[in-house]
């Protein structure tokens, strides 16, 4: 064997070693990245529920350099399992988030099939050793919005454009109604249902219909800013929902609720990455995060709890509180927010004595509604007017 040959061979060996080294490093890097897949029920473009989750996904992708995320939108419950198959087999997902109530059963059955994968399901109640659950609650912010609405209405008539009459939407309406009642016992809340999560034309007509009835302030559950925009066009006020919608209606948007899924996703993924959560210990992991944890934020715009245009009026209106005495609505809102954000929460809108609109006692004196009661709520608060499907008779 001549020298030249040895040189060439050793050069080749060296080069291949370098390549192998790069490959190994690349592999290690690839391997160290945690891969999280998100399954959305709606289009990200709805500017509503699925958009909210996607904002959360973008947030964790940005703050965790070791994280890689991907998502699929518009996934009906029947397509969840095949999407999970794809995520696990083709994209090596370590963690999979399914974000709609209807995704619950397919998630549980896929979790049995892929025991090494970690699943988190949003808004459901079934868990397994590799399936945790999570949800963010907005009812506290709805209550705070209700305080404002009660103080600001000139006609004593407020409106709510609801998507579907689900317990979640009913909980929001009731919380809003409780706030309204506290600030203005004469005011009523008129509800109209769309029977759709996304229906801008319907939302527009429902708002117009309520305006014709004399309503001058709105809250809503629909995945677009339509109600808010319609309020703006008609010199009424409204509360933004789910995503910051201030820029759609800078006069009409008083406040609202902003959902922050990002903080929940960050907590989950951090704990998965550092081995706190594994595919063996999720049976008891259930997030129900509220104002305190930052999963919900008050405002129509991040960092602006109340539109400055309405602050003076809220400061000038006073209410008589049994404990706090005579207090301006503005101060009451700030006080309630403080109480609900404290380490030890000292206030909740759903505290007895509380009757529903049919006069049935729902909470005894001093009794706090439990997680399950809030989760399954069907009754309507007394100042709520209008149709109420599945209203319990006892």
């Amino acid at each position: 064997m001549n020298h030249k040959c040895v040189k060439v061979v050793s050069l080749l060996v060296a080069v291949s070693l370098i390549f192998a080294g790069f490959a190994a490093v690349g592999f290690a890097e690839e391997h160290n990245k945690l891969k999280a897949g998100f399954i959305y029920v709606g289009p990200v473009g709805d500017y509503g529920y699925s958009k909210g989750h996607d904002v959360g996904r973008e947030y964790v992708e940005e703050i965790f350099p070791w994280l890689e995320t991907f998502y699929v939108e518009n996934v009906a419950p029947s397509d969840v399992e095949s999407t999970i198959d794809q995520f696990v087999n083709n994209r090596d997902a370590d963690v999979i988030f399914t974000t709609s109530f209807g995704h619950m059963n397919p998630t549980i059955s896929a979790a049995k099939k892929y025991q090494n994968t970690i699943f988190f399901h949003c808004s459901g109640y079934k868990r397994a050793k590799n399936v945790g659950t999570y949800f963010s609650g907005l009812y506290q912010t709805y209550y705070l919005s209700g305080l404002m609405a009660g103080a600001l209405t000139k006609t004593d008539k407020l409106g709510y454009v609801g998507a579907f009459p689900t317990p979640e939407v009913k909980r929001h309406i009731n919380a809003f109604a409780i706030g309204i009642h506290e600030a203005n016992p004469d005011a009523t809340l008129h509800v109209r249902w769309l029977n759709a999560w996304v229906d801008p034309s319907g939302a527009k007509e429902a708002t117009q219909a309520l305006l014709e009835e004399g309503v001058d302030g709105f809250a809503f559950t629909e995945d677009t800013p339509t109600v808010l925009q319609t309020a703006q066009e008609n010199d009424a006020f409204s509360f933004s929902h789910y995503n910051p919608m201030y820029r759609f209606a800078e006069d009409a948007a008083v406040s609202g609720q902003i959902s922050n899924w990002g903080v929940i996703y960050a907590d989950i993924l951090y704990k998965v990455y550092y081995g706190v959560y594994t595919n063996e210990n999720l049976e008891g992991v259930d997030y129900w995060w509220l104002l305190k944890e930052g999963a919900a934020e008050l405002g129509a715009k991040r960092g602006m709890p109340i539109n400055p245009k309405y602050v003076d009026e809220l400061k000038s209106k006073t209410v008589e509180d049994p404990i706090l005495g005579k207090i301006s609505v503005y101060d009451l809102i700030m006080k309630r927010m403080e109480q609900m954000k404290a380490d030890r929460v000292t206030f909740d809108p759903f505290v007895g004595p509380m009757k529903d609109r049919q006069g049935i006692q729902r909470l005894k004196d001093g009794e706090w509604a439990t997680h399950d009661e809030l989760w399954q709520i069907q009754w309507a608060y007394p100042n709520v007017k209008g149709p109420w499907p599945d209203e319990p008779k006892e």
Partner: protein
Amino acid sequence: MIEEWVVGTLSRTLAYGTPLLLATLGEIYSERSGVLNLGVEGMMILGAVSAFATAFITGNPWLGMLVAGIAGALASLIHGFVSITLRANQVVSGLALTMLGLGLSGLFGKGFEGKPLNSTITNVTVPVLKDIPYLGEILFVDQSPIVYIAIILTPVLSFILFHTSLGITIRSVGENPSAADSAGINVWLVRYFCVVTGGILAGFAGGYLSIAYRPAWTQGMTSGMGWLVIALTIFASWNPSRGLVGAFLFGALMHLSFRLQPWVAPELLKMMPYGSAILALVIISLGSLKKSMGAPNALQQPYIRGEK
């Protein structure tokens, strides 16, 4: 009280019925020439997204409407090419166009989601006319100019269809293309013309939704209006004036489904437009009634020269 109620409802009826009317007028023309276009929903939503994008970028909402018409026309050309030139099944091609439109609009619209539009087509109140009792309040107070355009278009398009030689040409192509062909009429050209007319009007309807009715872009924002249009076309028995009645009737039902909610089950009210649509479809499907309903004889039939 009652007066206020009726006036309010009728005023809203016009606002909601307008996109239905625009697209229905277009579909009537398309079907009158023998081409069923089930792609209305797709053309509408492409109109909506392109109108919004144009108005957003240029700051000119009327330019947005123009572009919406062009987008609708281009989309309809796809249907025209497949169903007229290639003589494929009109139902399949139209359905594909709807799906294509919904998908494409979602893709193009990604950058415009959640963006407020500063330059919209604002509502107008017409001086003097607004003082006409009742009618003034319904028609001339806080109403979109596009409502007027749609209402004026109706008799114009009706006149063209029934009282001009162009109208006779269109109808003869829809009734008996081979006879029209032997009379020297260019069947393909007429059909393309009508399909594109339908596309332009569907595009306008979409543009109205995204820059006038509800100035914002949301994926899937036409939420089934295009299907109502298909039903309305039959409901109107291919007559523009009856299309106006139908569109505003559907508009009224839509508005009333919210007005009457405290007293009548909303599901029932919301079902009514669709229920009447199904009824209309049943009627049209009964072959013997087809004639008396005034359905174009050659509807859905691709024209092949030399065949009977």
